[in-house]
């Protein structure tokens, strides 16, 4: 206790003059990693797995702090304004890109408020329905949905949720607007899908894999380029006849803009190591996903991803005309 206190004090003195030296000392006290969502959800789980492993590598505990609310923008806003000393980080998902369009007034400038550490993972999504829904495969689902667009119901977990984004993309691909039934979170939406109250939805494998395997819900396709290893029998959207229906819930680690490049470098290296940690790899596989490659777990790759995703989703969201504020 006393020792780490002394180290922190020393780091503080050194930091006043020498950024380089500060980076060498870094990290000398626990790091906070903000998750902009409630504890217990898939993003929280991803964060805790990565934080545990990175903490071991850096020799300091990484404390996960859940700052939920307003579709992740509260937590992101908090980190944007935090000290640029590398002790406050953000792990956010695709919502970082979509909230730039979903929210017309954000308390931060998405592209200019953060430094980038790297991509973490891209969780695949699955198009699923209640177990007794008539269509047998994706092709007949599209036909059925088009023919019965006044009858079918699409569930999602609220504005800005992964299931909402996936639904918008699906509708724009099949060029048919559908009735959506919004829920507050995936839990209640999944309950009603299992309970056959709604017809279909699209959600991350983290939420759907076990329900699919146990036959409580039916899977039509994954939204990935390759099949998902944990669901070998489920075709990709392209295989099933809907090319371009691709969406993954990518996660990235950010730091406040102006963090020293040495610290960012240290964090990136640590993230890359964590993504090779056998425990992390195994748990990610259990969740139906895999760690990002070393080339993707870099600041440049994350920046490129964020920029391209903002451009990709802006027209889809604008076309749907749904905003979160």
């Amino acid at each position: 206790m006393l020792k780490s206190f002394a180290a922190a004090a020393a780091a503080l003195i050194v930091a006043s003059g020498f950024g380089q030296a500060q980076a060498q000392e870094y990290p000398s006290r626990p790091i906070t990693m903000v998750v902009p969502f409630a504890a217990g959800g898939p993003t929280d789980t991803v964060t805790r797995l990565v934080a545990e492993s990175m903490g071991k590598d850096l020799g300091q505990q990484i404390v996960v702090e859940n700052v939920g609310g307003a579709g992740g923008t509260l937590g992101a806003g908090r980190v944007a304004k935090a000290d640029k000393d590398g002790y406050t980080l953000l792990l956010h998902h695709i919502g970082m890109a979509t909230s730039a369009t979903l929210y017309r007034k954000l308390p931060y400038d998405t592209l200019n408020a953060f430094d980038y550490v790297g991509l973490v993972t891209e969780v695949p999504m699955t198009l699923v329905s209640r177990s007794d829904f008539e269509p047998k495969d994706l092709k007949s689902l599209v036909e059925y949905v088009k023919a019965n667009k006044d009858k079918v119901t699409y569930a999602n977990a609220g504005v800005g949720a992964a299931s909402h984004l996936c639904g918008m993309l699906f509708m724009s691909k099949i060029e048919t607007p559908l009735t959506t039934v919004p829920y507050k979170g995936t839990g209640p939406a999944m309950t009603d899908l299992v309970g056959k109250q709604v017809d279909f939805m699209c959600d991350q494998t983290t939420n759907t894999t076990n329900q699919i395997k146990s036959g409580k819900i039916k899977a039509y396709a994954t939204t990935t380029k390759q099949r998902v290893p944990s669901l070998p029998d489920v075709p990709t959207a392209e295989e099933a006849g809907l090319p371009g229906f691709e969406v993954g819930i990518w996660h990235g680690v950010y730091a406040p803009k102006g963090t020293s490049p040495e610290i960012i470098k240290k964090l990136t290296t640590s993230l890359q190591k964590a993504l090779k940690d056998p425990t992390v790899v195994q748990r990610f596989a259990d969740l139906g996903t895999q760690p990002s490659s070393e080339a993707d777990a870099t600041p440049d790759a994350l920046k490129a991803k964020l920029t391209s995703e903002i451009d990709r989703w802006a027209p889809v969201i604008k076309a749907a005309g749904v905003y979160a504020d």
Partner: protein
Amino acid sequence: MDFLATFTELGHNLGLGFSTAALPVNLAFCFLGVLLGTLIGVLPGIGPTATIAMLLPITFNFEPATSLIMLAGIYYGAQYGGSTTAILINLPGESSSAVTAIDGYQMAKQGRAGPALATAALGSFFAGSVATILIALFAPPLTDLALKFGPAEYFSLMMLGLVASVALASGSVLKALAMVVLGLLLGLIGSDVNTGAQRYTLGFLELADGLNFVAVAVGVFGIAEILRNLEDESDREVMVKKVTNLWPSKEDFKAMIAPVLRGTALGSVLGILPGGGAILSSFAAYTVEKKISKTPERFGKGAIEGVAAPESANNAGAQTSFIPMLTLGIPANPVMALMIGAMIIQGIQPGPNVATEKPELFWGVIASMWIGNLMLVLLNLPLIGLWVRLLTVPYTVLFPAIIAFCAIGVYSVNSNSFDLYAVSAFGFLGYLLVKLECEPAPLLLGFVLGPMLEENLRRAMTISRGDWTVFFTKPLSLTLLLMAAAVLAIVFLPSVRKKREEVFVEEG
């Protein structure tokens, strides 16, 4: 189904469960969990969600069963502890103990804090034991029941809950209705679920998800109570001097048996329903007791039934809310979401397969619940004397301490300083309500149920494409609505009559 075979299988499963739960390490962590749960339950504002979130990293290195047993212990332990502050200082830490505060605090004021606490502990133990057996016996069929509840059914259930909440008031029915409506209005604050439009947020992003329940509850109950106490010095001394006995009398025991049984039954059923079920259970149990009592006028003035029934109901509900999580892998509340997170981190995929793939874990957790409840009652009964003595702490020490703990607790929910301003604002609102003789419990229920009522109404209407008859054509929904109508009639008729009598008396 072959009854005998089911029974043998159950015996086998429970045997497996107890052999897991009774491992020394699991017993130790079960105890640690319930102890921590009791403590955080007692500390106002700090809830099980924040505690479990903080402890999650520690459980990384445990066996899966051990970590789940401990985390579950924190959750139901907090249900025990939560009633303590509700009774002693009128400060419910959770929605479920808001009801306990109504009569529990009055009992404490009459010097009967000991019996009130003992009633809460014994009722909770009984309810917890029964609910554990229910989970073991009927988890799968109960899950099917929960799944039958679609948006239409939920809407009707919330309707029933709201109508019944008027009965929570011990004073004017009209004021209670006004409080329910005020609660509903407060519940409207936040993002519209369907369109994402912001309602009454005044441009604060912090309000986008609505007001924080803990902030509202701590404000209108706790802070308001402190303000009221500061004003009225005579009230304080009475409470300490009057402490007579710590243990319920024979009459108390007789009076609590039936309410405990009814509360357990109600709580067990409502707890299964994801979402509002567990919250409704304590409110519903209180309402039932007041309605069937021969002396309903005692309620709100220290009726022991008003403590026994809701406490049994909320503990039974807390226990059965594990059912959807254990059988489907779907969380019914934020705490269950955390438990699922804990399982994933341990490499267990929560879902329908847990019972068959990890029977020792599934049954171990269930068996540990019973053991944990036993530990809780043994832990809490001797502590009653200590808690009651807490009332003798000088108020110059107690009040600042309570406010500090409230602030920490509220902040811990979302790590958001905005919520602290909300506590202050609702503290003053609560004080104003006390002055106007309006009761906060119906307000709180309106606040909790309002958003669920609206969401489910709109969801049901969306699915039915705007067809209103959906609420009447579904048998479950129709039954609930008829019950609501009946309750409404019962609530209004006698009070209208009584009011008239009063008016006539005054005139005559």
